[in-house]
């Protein structure tokens, strides 16, 4: 059952935000903090993209999702809005599965 983990995650995400608003401003001056915190979403999002595209269960696979990601990347480069990028990826996978 995932409810306890979901509630803990929600509470933690909220506490992180409240801590940011409540902590002293001088923490912003810490260069190591300034450098590290923005890198976390970059690394985690990239890792999520890789594992969601090139793996099924515990195995590495190459399938239509790779093509879908490539099309989404083109949409991003063309500065398409968020929903268009997502729809382009999903539509590519759906179309390729028809053949």
């Amino acid at each position: 059952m995932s409810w306890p983990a979901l509630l803990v995650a929600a509470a933690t995400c909220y506490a992180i935000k409240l801590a940011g608003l409540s902590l002293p401003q001088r923490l912003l001056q810490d260069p190591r903090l300034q450098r590290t915190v923005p890198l976390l979403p970059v690394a985690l999002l990239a890792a999520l993209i890789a594992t969601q595209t090139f793996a099924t269960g515990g195995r590495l696979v190459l399938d239509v999702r790779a093509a879908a990601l490539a099309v989404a990347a083109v949409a991003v480069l063309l500065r398409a809005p968020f929903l268009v990028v997502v729809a382009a990826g999903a539509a590519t996978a759906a179309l390729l599965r028809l053949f």
Partner: protein
Amino acid sequence: MFTGASQFAFVSVIASGGSPWAGAATAALLGTRNALYGLRLGALLEVAGWRRAGAAQLVIDESTAMAIARDQPADSRLAFWATGLAVFGLWNLGTLIGALATHALPDPKVLGFDAAPPAAFLALLAPRLRAREPVAIALAAALVALVCLPFVPAGVPLLIVAVLVVLFGLRPQ
């Protein structure tokens, strides 16, 4: 939980067979950037008490970007609250519709819905790749995650990546 990337990540880890707690850890780690946003917004918003408690929930990428792009503090505050409340309302409405509509959908793979999360993550990642270092980190993180994936439980590659990037960021210079 009102912070999109964390929500997507939580669902993705569970959907790929990972433990809910690995999903929760990933969601929390992705949410750490909101603390930095909160620190920047603290001086602009000047909120205390229950208003601070309410404002905290609205601290996201969008509301922060809109608030710090203004020159006048009053404009910043208006931008923060307007953006935060608008996204909060529409986001949760969309989530509710999605939750109710799933029963009406056929196999998600037929519609390519399994390819939607990576596209969404890519759209969230792209604006953060405006310099060489984040691009290198993104590529390294993707590679590390794929290399450890066959050997550890689902969701754990993300935590390995998180530990490595924190060690990298905090390294002595």
